[in-house]
């Protein structure tokens, strides 16, 4: 007599799939260390979307985001000997990508745009997007990265702290400062 699937069985299926995926990734990382090109291609295929998406959210330029994502992969594979635990590859790669994005943001000069408060802000969707892009470009790289990772990437405080290699208190403080600055610039932009 076949046993009906229990709640436990249903609940553990996604967990099992995640565990299988993690084990598979560990094998690929291990094979990458010995120069296995197939393993390399598998890791790229698994992580490229997330990396390009994060870089695009941070840099707001898809082509530049692809360049940075490629640089992140290259750096991660060249320095894979520094990675002590194969399970930590995903976080290691993500941290490299965020750090490279912040380096790019520091090199760019923020365009100091004065919002034309004489021109009424109509509140259209496209206009709002343009205003938000401008506001993001005016934030310091650390503040911009913090608010993007929290609000767009939906990372927790702990995850943001791990990616940016700062204490959680610093993340909290930067996030508050970034939101305050964002709010102030938004109010200036809408002319209130």
């Amino acid at each position, binding site marked *: 007599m076949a046993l009906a699937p229990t709640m436990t069985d249903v609940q553990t299926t996604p967990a099992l799939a995640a565990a299988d995926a993690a084990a598979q990734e560990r094998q690929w990382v291990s094979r990458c260390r010995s*120069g296995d*090109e197939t393993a*390399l*291609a598998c890791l*790229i*295929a698994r992580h*490229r*979307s*997330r990396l*390009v*998406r994060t870089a*695009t*959210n941070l840099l707001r330029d*898809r082509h530049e985001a*692809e360049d940075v*994502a*490629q640089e992140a*992969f*290259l750096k991660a*594979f*060249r320095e894979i000997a520094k990675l002590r635990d194969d399970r930590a590859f995903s976080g290691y790669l993500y941290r490299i990508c965020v750090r490279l994005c912040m380096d790019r943001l520091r090199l760019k000069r923020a365009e100091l745009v004065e919002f034309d408060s004489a021109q009424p802000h109509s509140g259209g969707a496209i206009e*709002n*997007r343009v205003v*938000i892009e401008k506001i*993001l470009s005016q934030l310091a790289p650390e503040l911009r990265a913090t*608010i993007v990772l*929290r*609000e*767009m*990437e939906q990372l927790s*405080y702990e995850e943001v702290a791990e990616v940016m290699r700062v204490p959680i208190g610093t993340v*909290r403080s930067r*996030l*508050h400062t970034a*939101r*305050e600055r*964002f*709010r102030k610039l*938004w*109010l200036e932009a*809408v002319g*209130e």
Partner: protein
Amino acid sequence: MRAGRACQRFSRLSSEAEDRDLKPSEHRFLEAHREACPECRETETVAACALNMLRDMSFDDDIEISPTFDERIIRRLKVNTVREGIRYWSPAAVGAGIACVALFAALHVAATPTQMKDADVPGGQVRNSTPRNYPNLELDRIPEFRR
């Protein structure tokens, strides 16, 4: 007008409410200040709206990626591997070249026979020596000077 301490606290808690569960006392403070301060109330509404727009501007996972993305990475890694190989082996290659030149020079010197003295050879005769033409110093023509 500079925000008072209550307004600053309201602003901070309002921001933290996005990320954590506030204590009941903090909730009560926010409610009370929201009713008492129309400026903070309106600013909070506008800020929440702006943050929501920021979140909506997030790109998702089905973002379009160039078809040659993977290939470019692997190609650059291969080029880098060849360059690193050349850099790694070049000192050894230079050392091997120097060693070859030194060996060649040593063999050349060894192949050239040396001049041996008669006194060093048993029987007083030099054997296997290359005959040399000694210059004629004409010592007999040097005058003898007497003191």
